[in-house]
Protein backbone atom coordinates (compact mmCIF):
# COMPACT_ATOMS: atom_id res chain seq x y z
CA UNK A 1 0.00 0.00 0.00
CA UNK A 2 2.83 2.37 0.78
CA UNK A 3 3.80 3.22 -2.78
CA UNK A 4 4.15 6.59 -4.44
CA UNK A 5 0.49 7.46 -5.21
CA UNK A 6 1.55 10.07 -7.75
CA UNK A 7 3.44 7.52 -9.88
CA UNK A 8 0.27 5.64 -10.74
CA UNK A 9 -1.50 8.92 -11.38
CA UNK A 10 1.10 9.88 -13.99
CA UNK A 11 -0.66 7.57 -16.46
CA UNK A 12 -3.62 9.91 -16.34
CA UNK A 13 -2.11 13.29 -15.52
CA UNK A 14 1.28 14.30 -16.99
CA UNK A 15 3.97 14.87 -14.34
CA UNK A 16 4.46 18.40 -15.65
CA UNK A 17 0.84 19.25 -14.83
CA UNK A 18 1.36 17.98 -11.28
CA UNK A 19 4.53 20.03 -10.92
CA UNK A 20 2.78 23.14 -12.26
CA UNK A 21 -0.02 22.58 -9.72
CA UNK A 22 2.47 22.38 -6.82
CA UNK A 23 4.20 25.58 -7.99
CA UNK A 24 0.81 27.27 -8.36
CA UNK A 25 -0.05 26.33 -4.78
CA UNK A 26 3.26 27.75 -3.49
CA UNK A 27 2.55 30.99 -5.39
CA UNK A 28 -0.99 31.10 -3.99
CA UNK A 29 0.37 30.77 -0.44
CA UNK A 30 2.98 33.48 -1.02
CA UNK A 31 0.46 35.82 -2.66
CA UNK A 32 -2.21 35.11 -0.05
CA UNK A 33 0.22 35.79 2.79
CA UNK A 34 1.26 39.14 1.29
CA UNK A 35 -2.37 40.15 0.69
CA UNK A 36 -3.23 39.01 4.24
CA UNK A 37 -0.44 41.22 5.64
CA UNK A 38 -1.64 44.21 3.60
CA UNK A 39 -5.28 43.64 4.47
CA UNK A 40 -4.83 43.13 8.21
CA UNK A 41 -1.91 45.56 8.43
CA UNK A 42 -0.25 42.95 10.61
CA UNK A 43 3.28 43.72 9.41
CA UNK A 44 2.66 47.43 10.00
CA UNK A 45 1.42 46.70 13.53
CA UNK A 46 4.31 44.35 14.18
CA UNK A 47 7.02 46.86 13.21
CA UNK A 48 5.24 49.73 14.99
CA UNK A 49 5.05 47.60 18.12
CA UNK A 50 8.72 46.65 17.78
CA UNK A 51 9.66 50.34 17.48
CA UNK A 52 7.58 51.20 20.52
CA UNK A 53 9.30 48.42 22.48
CA UNK A 54 12.69 49.71 21.34
CA UNK A 55 11.83 53.21 22.60
CA UNK A 56 10.94 51.77 26.01
CA UNK A 57 14.02 49.53 26.15
CA UNK A 58 16.33 49.93 29.11
CA UNK A 59 19.28 48.22 27.42
CA UNK A 60 20.33 47.34 23.90
CA UNK A 61 20.41 43.75 22.76
CA UNK A 62 23.57 42.71 20.93
CA UNK A 63 23.63 40.72 17.70
CA UNK A 64 24.99 37.68 19.59
CA UNK A 65 22.13 37.90 22.06
CA UNK A 66 19.61 38.29 19.25
CA UNK A 67 21.04 35.21 17.56
CA UNK A 68 20.67 33.25 20.80
CA UNK A 69 17.09 34.50 21.11
CA UNK A 70 16.40 33.47 17.51
CA UNK A 71 17.78 29.98 18.18
CA UNK A 72 15.71 29.71 21.40
CA UNK A 73 12.62 30.88 19.52
CA UNK A 74 13.11 28.22 16.88
CA UNK A 75 13.83 25.51 19.44
CA UNK A 76 11.07 26.34 21.92
CA UNK A 77 8.31 28.30 20.18
CA UNK A 78 8.56 26.86 16.68
CA UNK A 79 9.80 23.28 16.95
CA UNK A 80 8.01 22.35 20.16
CA UNK A 81 5.02 24.77 20.10
CA UNK A 82 6.17 26.08 23.49
CA UNK A 83 3.67 28.95 23.50
CA UNK A 84 0.77 26.70 24.42
CA UNK A 85 0.22 26.33 28.14
CA UNK A 86 -2.58 23.83 27.55
CA UNK A 87 -0.77 20.52 27.02
CA UNK A 88 -3.44 18.68 24.96
CA UNK A 89 -3.59 21.68 22.61
CA UNK A 90 0.16 21.65 22.36
CA UNK A 91 0.25 17.94 21.54
CA UNK A 92 -2.50 18.28 18.94
CA UNK A 93 -0.67 21.24 17.40
CA UNK A 94 2.61 19.31 17.26
CA UNK A 95 0.89 16.38 15.56
CA UNK A 96 -0.74 18.57 12.92
CA UNK A 97 2.35 20.72 12.41
CA UNK A 98 4.80 17.87 11.87
CA UNK A 99 2.15 15.92 9.98
CA UNK A 100 1.69 18.83 7.58
CA UNK A 101 5.44 19.33 7.11
CA UNK A 102 5.96 15.63 6.38
CA UNK A 103 2.96 15.48 4.08
CA UNK A 104 3.77 18.65 2.11
CA UNK A 105 7.50 17.96 1.83
CA UNK A 106 7.13 14.34 0.70
CA UNK A 107 4.40 15.33 -1.78
CA UNK A 108 6.76 17.86 -3.39
CA UNK A 109 9.73 15.45 -3.37
CA UNK A 110 7.71 12.61 -4.90
CA UNK A 111 6.16 14.81 -7.58
CA UNK A 112 9.38 16.53 -8.57
CA UNK A 113 11.83 13.69 -8.14
CA UNK A 114 10.27 10.26 -8.33
CA UNK A 115 7.48 10.07 -10.87
CA UNK A 116 8.40 7.31 -13.26
CA UNK A 117 11.42 6.42 -11.15
CA UNK A 118 11.76 4.00 -8.26
CA UNK A 119 10.58 5.85 -5.19
CA UNK A 120 12.53 5.06 -2.01
CA UNK A 121 10.06 3.29 0.28
CA UNK A 122 10.63 5.82 3.04
CA UNK A 123 8.97 8.65 1.05
CA UNK A 124 5.48 7.17 0.61
CA UNK A 125 5.73 5.85 4.15
CA UNK A 126 6.39 9.36 5.47
CA UNK A 127 3.65 10.74 3.21
CA UNK A 128 1.10 8.38 4.73
CA UNK A 129 2.45 8.95 8.24
CA UNK A 130 2.22 12.72 7.76
CA UNK A 131 -1.39 12.50 6.57
CA UNK A 132 -2.23 10.21 9.48
CA UNK A 133 -0.62 12.56 12.02
CA UNK A 134 -2.59 15.42 10.50
CA UNK A 135 -5.80 13.45 10.89
CA UNK A 136 -5.11 12.39 14.48
CA UNK A 137 -4.11 15.89 15.64
CA UNK A 138 -6.75 17.62 13.54
CA UNK A 139 -9.73 15.47 14.50
CA UNK A 140 -8.67 15.51 18.15
CA UNK A 141 -8.66 19.31 17.96
CA UNK A 142 -11.91 19.47 15.99
CA UNK A 143 -14.00 17.22 18.22
CA UNK A 144 -12.53 17.76 21.68
CA UNK A 145 -10.16 20.70 22.00
CA UNK A 146 -11.69 23.44 19.82
CA UNK A 147 -12.99 26.13 22.14
CA UNK A 148 -16.38 26.31 20.44
CA UNK A 149 -16.94 22.75 21.57
CA UNK A 150 -14.87 22.60 24.77
CA UNK A 151 -15.69 26.05 26.13
CA UNK A 152 -18.78 27.46 24.52
CA UNK A 153 -20.86 24.29 24.43
CA UNK A 154 -21.47 24.42 20.67
CA UNK A 155 -21.94 21.18 18.73
CA UNK A 156 -18.93 19.89 16.76
CA UNK A 157 -20.72 20.35 13.44
CA UNK A 158 -21.16 24.10 13.85
CA UNK A 159 -18.87 25.57 11.19
CA UNK A 160 -17.78 29.21 10.89
CA UNK A 161 -15.29 30.95 8.60
CA UNK A 162 -12.57 30.61 11.24
CA UNK A 163 -12.69 26.85 10.58
CA UNK A 164 -11.63 27.21 6.94
CA UNK A 165 -8.00 26.39 7.67
CA UNK A 166 -8.44 23.40 9.93
CA UNK A 167 -11.30 21.92 7.89
CA UNK A 168 -9.55 22.23 4.52
CA UNK A 169 -6.39 20.81 6.10
CA UNK A 170 -8.32 17.87 7.54
CA UNK A 171 -10.17 17.30 4.27
CA UNK A 172 -6.89 17.34 2.33
CA UNK A 173 -5.25 14.76 4.59
CA UNK A 174 -8.36 12.57 4.87
CA UNK A 175 -9.10 12.50 1.11
CA UNK A 176 -5.41 11.89 0.38
CA UNK A 177 -5.43 8.81 2.61
CA UNK A 178 -8.71 7.50 1.16
CA UNK A 179 -7.48 8.15 -2.40
CA UNK A 180 -4.27 6.24 -1.70
CA UNK A 181 -6.25 3.37 -0.17
CA UNK A 182 -8.65 3.18 -3.13
CA UNK A 183 -5.69 3.20 -5.48
CA UNK A 184 -4.09 0.35 -3.55
CA UNK A 185 -7.21 -1.82 -3.64
CA UNK A 186 -7.72 -1.07 -7.33
CA UNK A 187 -11.06 0.76 -7.11
CA UNK A 188 -10.28 3.12 -9.97
CA UNK A 189 -13.51 5.15 -10.15
CA UNK A 190 -13.63 5.67 -6.39
CA UNK A 191 -9.94 6.47 -6.47
CA UNK A 192 -10.58 9.23 -9.04
CA UNK A 193 -13.48 10.58 -6.99
CA UNK A 194 -11.33 10.91 -3.87
CA UNK A 195 -8.42 12.28 -5.89
CA UNK A 196 -10.77 15.01 -7.15
CA UNK A 197 -11.88 15.78 -3.58
CA UNK A 198 -8.22 15.78 -2.46
CA UNK A 199 -7.29 18.33 -5.14
CA UNK A 200 -10.36 20.42 -4.39
CA UNK A 201 -9.65 20.58 -0.66
CA UNK A 202 -5.94 21.28 -1.12
CA UNK A 203 -6.78 24.11 -3.55
CA UNK A 204 -9.11 25.58 -0.91
CA UNK A 205 -6.37 25.14 1.73
CA UNK A 206 -3.63 26.87 -0.25
CA UNK A 207 -5.86 29.28 -2.13
CA UNK A 208 -7.78 30.43 0.94
CA UNK A 209 -4.81 31.91 2.78
CA UNK A 210 -6.35 35.39 2.75
CA UNK A 211 -9.48 34.16 4.52
CA UNK A 212 -8.01 31.49 6.77
CA UNK A 213 -5.35 31.38 9.48
CA UNK A 214 -2.84 29.67 7.20
CA UNK A 215 -0.42 32.63 7.45
CA UNK A 216 0.02 32.03 11.20
CA UNK A 217 2.90 29.70 10.39
CA UNK A 218 4.84 32.72 9.13
CA UNK A 219 3.95 35.49 11.54
CA UNK A 220 3.76 33.47 14.78
CA UNK A 221 7.53 32.79 14.88
CA UNK A 222 8.19 36.50 14.24
CA UNK A 223 5.85 37.47 17.09
CA UNK A 224 7.46 34.92 19.42
CA UNK A 225 10.91 36.32 18.56
CA UNK A 226 9.75 39.89 19.26
CA UNK A 227 8.25 38.81 22.58
CA UNK A 228 11.60 37.37 23.67
CA UNK A 229 13.53 40.44 22.46
CA UNK A 230 11.15 42.67 24.45
CA UNK A 231 11.98 40.61 27.53
CA UNK A 232 15.72 40.87 26.90
CA UNK A 233 15.82 44.61 26.23
CA UNK A 234 13.87 45.45 29.38
CA UNK A 235 10.75 46.88 27.67
CA UNK A 236 8.81 43.68 28.49
CA UNK A 237 5.69 44.95 26.68
CA UNK A 238 5.05 47.26 29.61
CA UNK A 239 5.06 44.49 32.19
CA UNK A 240 6.70 45.01 35.58
CA UNK A 241 10.17 43.62 36.13
CA UNK A 242 10.31 40.14 37.65
CA UNK A 243 10.46 40.19 41.44
CA UNK A 244 13.88 39.73 42.99
CA UNK A 245 12.76 36.75 45.10
CA UNK A 246 13.66 33.08 45.20
CA UNK A 247 11.30 30.56 43.62
CA UNK A 248 10.02 28.73 46.66
CA UNK A 249 6.38 27.99 45.86
CA UNK A 250 4.73 25.75 43.31
CA UNK A 251 3.55 26.49 39.82
CA UNK A 252 0.22 27.81 41.05
CA UNK A 253 -2.41 28.22 38.38
CA UNK A 254 -0.02 26.95 35.70
CA UNK A 255 -0.31 23.45 37.12
CA UNK A 256 -4.05 23.43 36.48
CA UNK A 257 -5.92 22.87 33.26
CA UNK A 258 -8.89 25.19 32.89
CA UNK A 259 -11.90 22.89 33.15
CA UNK A 260 -14.93 24.78 34.37
CA UNK A 261 -15.27 27.03 31.37
Amino acid sequence: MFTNPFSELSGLIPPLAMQVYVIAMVLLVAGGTVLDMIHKKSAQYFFKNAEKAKAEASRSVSIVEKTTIAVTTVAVDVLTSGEFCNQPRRQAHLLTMYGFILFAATTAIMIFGYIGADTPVILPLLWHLGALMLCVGGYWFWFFIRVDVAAEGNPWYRVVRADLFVLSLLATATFALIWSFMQAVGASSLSMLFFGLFIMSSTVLFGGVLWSKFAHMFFKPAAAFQKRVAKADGSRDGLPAPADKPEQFGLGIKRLLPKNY
Partner: protein
Amino acid sequence: MPTFVYMTRCDGCGHCVDICPSDIMHIDKTLRRATNIEPNMCWECYSCVKACPQNAIDVRGYADFAPLGHKVRVLREEEKGTISWKIKFRDGREKNFLSPITTKPWGEAIEDLATLPMPDEEALNSQLLCYEPDVLGYEGGLRDLPGELKQGVYY
Protein backbone atom coordinates in the same frame (compact mmCIF):
# COMPACT_ATOMS: atom_id res chain seq x y z
CA MET B 1 -11.22 49.97 35.13
CA PRO B 2 -12.48 46.89 33.27
CA THR B 3 -10.19 44.38 31.66
CA PHE B 4 -9.32 43.80 28.02
CA VAL B 5 -7.22 41.23 26.21
CA TYR B 6 -4.25 41.67 23.92
CA MET B 7 -5.21 39.29 21.13
CA THR B 8 -1.62 38.87 20.00
CA ARG B 9 -0.51 37.54 23.39
CA CYS B 10 -3.55 35.43 24.30
CA ASP B 11 -3.33 31.77 23.34
CA GLY B 12 -6.93 30.95 24.24
CA CYS B 13 -6.06 28.69 27.18
CA GLY B 14 -9.23 29.59 29.12
CA HIS B 15 -7.83 30.31 32.61
CA CYS B 16 -9.53 33.73 32.63
CA VAL B 17 -12.82 32.19 31.53
CA ASP B 18 -12.49 29.72 34.36
CA ILE B 19 -11.71 32.22 37.06
CA CYS B 20 -13.99 35.16 36.15
CA PRO B 21 -16.60 35.47 38.94
CA SER B 22 -18.89 37.49 36.65
CA ASP B 23 -18.67 34.95 33.83
CA ILE B 24 -17.92 37.71 31.34
CA MET B 25 -14.57 36.43 30.10
CA HIS B 26 -15.33 34.30 27.06
CA ILE B 27 -13.51 32.82 24.15
CA ASP B 28 -14.29 34.75 20.98
CA LYS B 29 -16.08 32.52 18.49
CA THR B 30 -14.16 33.74 15.48
CA LEU B 31 -10.73 34.59 16.80
CA ARG B 32 -10.61 31.82 19.44
CA ARG B 33 -9.00 34.19 21.90
CA ALA B 34 -10.33 35.43 25.24
CA THR B 35 -12.43 38.56 25.33
CA ASN B 36 -14.31 40.53 27.94
CA ILE B 37 -17.82 40.31 26.52
CA GLU B 38 -19.33 42.87 28.86
CA PRO B 39 -16.87 45.41 30.32
CA ASN B 40 -19.79 47.27 31.97
CA MET B 41 -20.40 44.24 34.13
CA CYS B 42 -16.74 43.81 35.12
CA TRP B 43 -16.45 44.32 38.84
CA GLU B 44 -12.73 44.85 38.47
CA CYS B 45 -11.55 42.07 40.73
CA TYR B 46 -8.59 41.57 38.34
CA SER B 47 -8.70 37.82 38.84
CA CYS B 48 -8.28 37.28 35.11
CA VAL B 49 -5.43 39.80 34.91
CA LYS B 50 -3.60 37.91 37.61
CA ALA B 51 -4.45 34.44 36.38
CA CYS B 52 -3.41 34.89 32.74
CA PRO B 53 -0.30 32.77 32.15
CA GLN B 54 0.54 34.82 29.04
CA ASN B 55 0.14 38.23 30.72
CA ALA B 56 -2.26 39.06 27.93
CA ILE B 57 -4.83 40.93 30.03
CA ASP B 58 -4.64 44.60 30.97
CA VAL B 59 -7.08 47.06 32.45
CA ARG B 60 -8.16 50.44 31.17
CA GLY B 61 -10.51 53.16 32.35
CA TYR B 62 -13.57 54.34 30.51
CA ALA B 63 -12.60 56.96 27.93
CA ASP B 64 -14.77 59.69 29.46
CA PHE B 65 -12.79 60.02 32.67
CA ALA B 66 -9.54 58.27 31.81
CA PRO B 67 -8.56 59.00 28.21
CA LEU B 68 -6.38 56.29 26.78
CA GLY B 69 -2.67 56.44 27.23
CA HIS B 70 -2.21 55.09 30.71
CA LYS B 71 -1.34 51.49 31.41
CA VAL B 72 -1.78 49.04 34.24
CA ARG B 73 0.11 45.81 33.91
CA VAL B 74 0.59 43.03 36.35
CA LEU B 75 3.00 40.17 36.67
CA ARG B 76 2.00 37.31 38.92
CA GLU B 77 4.84 34.99 39.85
CA GLU B 78 3.36 32.24 41.93
CA GLU B 79 6.66 30.39 42.08
CA LYS B 80 8.04 33.36 44.02
CA GLY B 81 4.80 34.14 45.85
CA THR B 82 4.79 37.70 44.49
CA ILE B 83 2.60 39.96 42.44
CA SER B 84 4.00 43.09 40.77
CA TRP B 85 2.01 46.00 39.40
CA LYS B 86 3.27 48.63 37.03
CA ILE B 87 1.12 51.74 36.70
CA LYS B 88 2.01 54.11 33.92
CA PHE B 89 0.30 57.49 33.94
CA ARG B 90 -0.56 59.51 30.86
CA ASP B 91 2.16 62.03 31.64
CA GLY B 92 4.78 59.28 31.66
CA ARG B 93 5.11 58.87 35.44
CA GLU B 94 5.48 55.32 36.54
CA LYS B 95 4.73 53.55 39.79
CA ASN B 96 5.76 50.04 40.63
CA PHE B 97 4.35 47.92 43.41
CA LEU B 98 5.47 44.55 44.64
CA SER B 99 3.25 42.57 47.01
CA PRO B 100 3.30 39.07 48.43
CA ILE B 101 0.55 36.70 47.37
CA THR B 102 -1.17 36.04 50.63
CA THR B 103 -1.62 32.38 51.19
CA LYS B 104 -2.32 31.29 54.72
CA PRO B 105 -3.01 27.87 56.17
CA TRP B 106 -6.68 26.83 56.47
CA GLY B 107 -8.37 28.47 59.43
CA GLU B 108 -5.58 30.89 60.28
CA ALA B 109 -6.86 34.05 58.59
CA ILE B 110 -10.57 33.33 59.07
CA GLU B 111 -10.77 31.77 62.49
CA ASP B 112 -14.32 30.41 62.13
CA LEU B 113 -13.08 28.10 59.40
CA ALA B 114 -10.76 26.38 61.85
CA THR B 115 -13.80 24.52 63.20
CA LEU B 116 -14.57 23.08 59.74
CA PRO B 117 -12.50 20.50 57.90
CA MET B 118 -10.57 21.66 54.86
CA PRO B 119 -12.60 21.14 51.63
CA ASP B 120 -11.67 18.01 49.72
CA GLU B 121 -10.83 17.76 45.99
CA GLU B 122 -14.48 17.29 45.01
CA ALA B 123 -15.55 20.39 46.91
CA LEU B 124 -12.74 22.43 45.35
CA ASN B 125 -13.88 21.43 41.87
CA SER B 126 -17.52 22.16 42.62
CA GLN B 127 -19.34 25.22 41.28
CA LEU B 128 -20.44 26.07 44.80
CA LEU B 129 -18.57 28.34 47.14
CA CYS B 130 -17.02 27.04 50.34
CA TYR B 131 -19.60 25.16 52.45
CA GLU B 132 -22.41 26.49 50.30
CA PRO B 133 -25.39 26.05 50.57
CA ASP B 134 -25.22 25.15 54.30
CA VAL B 135 -23.57 28.42 55.30
CA LEU B 136 -26.29 30.42 53.56
CA GLY B 137 -28.80 29.11 56.08
CA TYR B 138 -31.50 28.29 53.52
CA GLU B 139 -33.88 25.63 54.66
CA GLY B 140 -33.78 22.73 52.27
CA GLY B 141 -30.77 24.05 50.36
CA LEU B 142 -30.62 25.92 47.07
CA ARG B 143 -33.41 25.41 44.58
CA ASP B 144 -32.99 24.60 40.90
CA LEU B 145 -29.31 23.90 41.21
CA PRO B 146 -28.09 22.84 37.75
CA GLY B 147 -26.82 19.30 37.61
CA GLU B 148 -24.10 20.16 35.10
CA LEU B 149 -21.39 22.77 34.82
CA LYS B 150 -22.24 25.95 32.98
CA GLN B 151 -22.13 25.58 29.23
CA GLY B 152 -21.46 29.16 28.17
CA VAL B 153 -23.69 31.65 26.42
CA TYR B 154 -25.81 30.70 23.43
CA TYR B 155 -26.55 33.25 20.75
